[in-house]
């Protein structure tokens, strides 16, 4: 287990914020920072459900990159990682040194 990484002992501020944040109310008008589009209002008028269009959702991609948990890398490795057979999977490669 020489490759085993040392995980941070404490959740990051981003992880903590995600955990403690409350859900935005559906009809709450939110002032997003300049340059950030609100969810498509037409979509939300037409639907009872909480609906979010692709363009709205894609705005988060570069903004929120926190791992879900402090032991996430290990979990990904355990769940997606290679089986018994060498080379049968390449899961976990995102953390490799390559």
């Amino acid at each position: 287990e020489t490759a085993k990484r040392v995980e941070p002992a404490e959740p990051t501020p981003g992880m903590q914020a995600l955990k403690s944040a409350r859900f935005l109310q559906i009809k709450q008008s939110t002032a997003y920072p300049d340059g950030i589009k609100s969810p498509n209002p037409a979509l939300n008028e037409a639907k009872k459900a909480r609906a979010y269009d692709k363009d709205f959702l894609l705005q988060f991609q570069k903004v929120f990159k926190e791992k879900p948990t402090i032991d996430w890398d290990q979990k990904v490795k355990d769940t997606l990682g290679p089986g018994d057979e060498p080379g049968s999977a390449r899961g976990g490669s995102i953390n490799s040194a390559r």
Partner: protein
Amino acid sequence: VNSASSDNIITVFDDPENFNVKHQLQNKWTLWFTKPPSGKQDWNELLKEVITFESVEEFWGIYNNITPASELAQKSDYHLFKTGVRPEWEDVQNKHGGRWAYTFKNSKANDEVWLHLMLAAIGETLEDDDDNEVMGVNVNIRKAFWRVGLWTRTAGQSPKGKAAEGADPKESQKRLERLGKAFKEVLQLPAQDMVEFAGHAESAHTGSSRAKAKYSL
């Protein structure tokens, strides 16, 4: 912006380390992974639950920190299903359902296509409010192709002996065709490329996922 609701709202766009609101999804979703077989395991042992989430922010935290579909080994699958539904034909909630599918004839998955399909599912833009057909979406990585699927609750027929339960096959077919059209749009396929629908019962009967398509669009 009225003053009552603007009090102290900090989104992830304002401050990714100190935001205090997050965007709730209409449904809770669970991500599953099928590991490529490496010997004698049952398919069941290869299917693993990865994580459950219910906000837009959580989705991106996961997506940004997990192996992209394009880097998965052959015989891997991701499944993103509504929480409580197992991504298997045998799940009681899938028993009478089916799936729309499209097969891409190259071996490396396009991450953007799979991402857009997941976003359409969690953003609830695939179906009308009352249709209630979407069970989940998945991607299968295979040797010479990869495939995306959209699993549905019904398959355009009354289950045997269940006609009295209000399942109108014509209504089901209409819903499924609307959904298939939305699926095709998300994949941005040219008109001549067909997405195909098959019921799980038929697929199970033929013993493979290559059941004869019931509808194509």
